C-alpha cells in the first residue's frame, strides 16, 4: 500500500511540516482577506460609480487570471520589473489575499444589498439609532449569510496552496511527491499510501473549520 515509506526516517514529520506551511499561508491570507474584503465590500455597496468600475475590473481580473499566473507575476515579475526581491511565502500571501479579498468583498456586498430596506425602516420606527440598527439588526444577518460562503472560501484556499510549489515553497503535496519519487524503486506503489495520508491531512485541516461554521450558524440562529 505504500504506508511503510511514511515510517522511514522523518518522512511523517516532513509531511506535517509541509501541512503547517500550507496552513500558515492560507490562514494568514484568509485573515488579510477578511479585513480587506469587508472594507471593499462596504465600499462596493455604496454604489459609487468610480468604485464600482474599479472593483468590477479587479473582480474580473481575479476571476479570469489563474492563480498560478498571479504567483509567477508576483514572485518573478516584481523582481524583473521593479527589482523588488520578495520572499516566496510573502509572494504567496499577497496572491492569495488578492484573490480572497475579491471573493470576500463580493460576499459582503451581496449580503449588504440583500438586506431589504424595510429592515432599516422598521429599526428606525422602533426608535433604534443608526449604530443600534447595524449592531442589532443588520450585522448579525450579514454574518449569518456570509459564514457558509466564507468557510467555503477558506477551505478552497487551503487546497489551492498546493500551487505554491511552483515558486519553490515546499508544502504538503510537494513533500508527498518528494517521498514518492525518492522511493520510486524501493516501493513503486507508495503513491497510493502517500496520497491517502495527504488526503487525510487536508481533511483534518479543513474539517474543524467546517464544524466551526456549522456551530456558529446554529448558535446565531437562535
Amino acid at each position: 500500500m505504500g504506508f511503510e515509506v511514511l515510517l522511514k526516517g522523518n518522512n511523517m514529520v516532513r509531511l506535517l511540516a509541509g501541512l503547517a506551511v500550507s496552513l500558515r499561508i492560507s490562514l494568514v491570507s484568509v485573515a488579510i482577506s477578511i479585513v480587506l474584503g469587508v472594507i471593499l465590500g462596504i465600499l462596493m455597496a455604496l454604489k459609487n460609480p468610480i468604485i464600482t468600475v474599479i472593483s468590477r475590473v479587479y473582480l474580473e481580473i481575479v476571476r479570469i487570471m489563474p492563480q498560478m499566473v498571479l504567483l509567477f507575476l508576483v514572485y518573478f515579475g516584481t523582481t524583473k520589473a521593479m527589482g523588488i526581491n520578495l520572499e516566496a511565502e510573502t509572494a504567496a500571501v499577497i496572491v492569495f489575499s488578492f484573490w480572497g479579498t475579491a471573493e470576500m468583498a463580493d460576499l459582503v456586498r451581496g449580503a449588504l444589498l440583500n438586506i431589504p430596506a424595510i429592515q432599516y425602516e422598521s429599526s428606525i420606527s422602533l426608535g433604534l439609532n443608526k449604530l443600534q440598527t447595524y449592531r442589532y439588526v443588520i450585522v448579525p444577518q450579514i454574518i449569518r449569510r456570509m459564514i457558509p460562503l466564507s468557510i467555503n472560501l477558506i477551505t478552497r484556499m487551503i487546497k489551492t496552496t498546493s500551487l505554491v510549489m511552483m515558486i519553490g515553497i515546499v508544502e504538503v503535496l510537494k513533500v508527498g511527491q518528494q517521498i514518492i519519487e525518492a522511493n520510486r524503486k524501493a516501493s513503486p506503489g507508495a503513491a497510493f499510501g502517500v496520497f491517502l495520508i495527504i488526503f487525510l491531512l487536508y481533511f483534518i485541516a479543513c474539517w474543524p473549520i467546517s464544524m466551526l461554521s456549522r456551530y456558529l450558524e446554529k448558535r446565531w440562529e437562535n
Partner: protein
Amino acid sequence: MKKNYLKRILASALTLALGVVTLTGCGSASAKESPAEQTSSEASAQEQSDSKVYRTLDEIKESGEINIGVFSDKNPFGYVDENGEYQGYDVYFANKLGEDLGVKINFVSTEAASRVEYLETGKVDIVLANFTVTEERAEKVDFALPYMNVALGVVSPKDKVIKDLSEIKADDQVIVISGTTAETYLEKNYPDIKLQKFDTYATAKTSFENGTGVAWANDNTEVIAYAIENPGYEVGIPSLGSQDTIAPAVSKGNSTLLDWINSEIESLGKENFFHADYEATLIDTYGKDYEETLVVEGGKVADSSATEASSEASTATSSEAATDASSAE
C-alpha cells in the same frame, strides 16, 4: 443619512485595517530575519544600484551562502531522502561546488517550468536541475560546461529487440509522447515510420506494455530506467539522433561565477569526479553499462555529434516535456 453613516464606519474601518496591515507587515518581516533573507535583501539592494540581478563570485563568497536550484522530486537526479536531505546526481555535484567555494548551500526546490525564471531574477545563483542545453535557453541564461549527456533511446520487447530503426517494418508503429524530442526527431528524419502519440507518460507506458507498438522512443535516460525496472524489455538503441548535454546554468552575464564553475568542472575531470558521482547516485538506476554513455567528464563531450546538437537545439526544448510527463508515473 445612511450613506453618511456608512462612510463614517468605512473611514474608521479603513484606518483600523491599514493599521493592522502595517503592523502585521512589520511583524512578519522582523520575525523572519533569517540569514537567507538578509542575503536576498542584500542582493536586491545590489541590483538596484548596479541594475544586475545576479551575485558575482565574490559577493557569494562574502555572504557565505549560495542558492542552488535543484529538482526535489526527480530521482535519481535531484530528490529529497527520508531525512529531508537533498540527494542525487545533480545534488552530489552541487555539494562539491559548495564545498570548494567554502560556502553553505541553500537548496531551492525548482520545477522544470520555472528554472529560467529563477536565474533571470537572480533568486538562485546556479541551476543544477537536469537542465538540457538548448539554443533558446542559452539566450536567457548562461550555460557552463556540460556534465551529462542526454539523447534519444528506443526500447523494445526482449524477444523482438529493435537495434536499428531500419528494422521497423512498414506496418509497425512506434510509440512516442507528444511534444518530446523523440516525436520531433522521428517525424523529421524518419517520416515513413508510423507514430502512435500519447499525451502522458502513463498512457504511453500502458499502451507499450499492451503491445500496440513495436518500440517506444523517448529520452534515453527514461527508456534505460524503464528497461531496468521492467524485465522483458531491452534498450536496443541507447543513443539516437542529436546528442544533447546537461549543464549548470547561471544568470546571463554572470561571468565570474560561470568561469569559476567551468574551471571547477575541468579540474574535477582530472579526478574523474563525475564518474564517482555516477557510481554514487545513478548506478542503481542505470547500471554500469551506461556510465560512459551518460557521463561527461571535464566538460568534454566525447561524441563528435555534440557539435551538431547545438544546431538542432531548438528541437530539444521539448525534451523537458518528456521529463515532465515521466514525473506522472
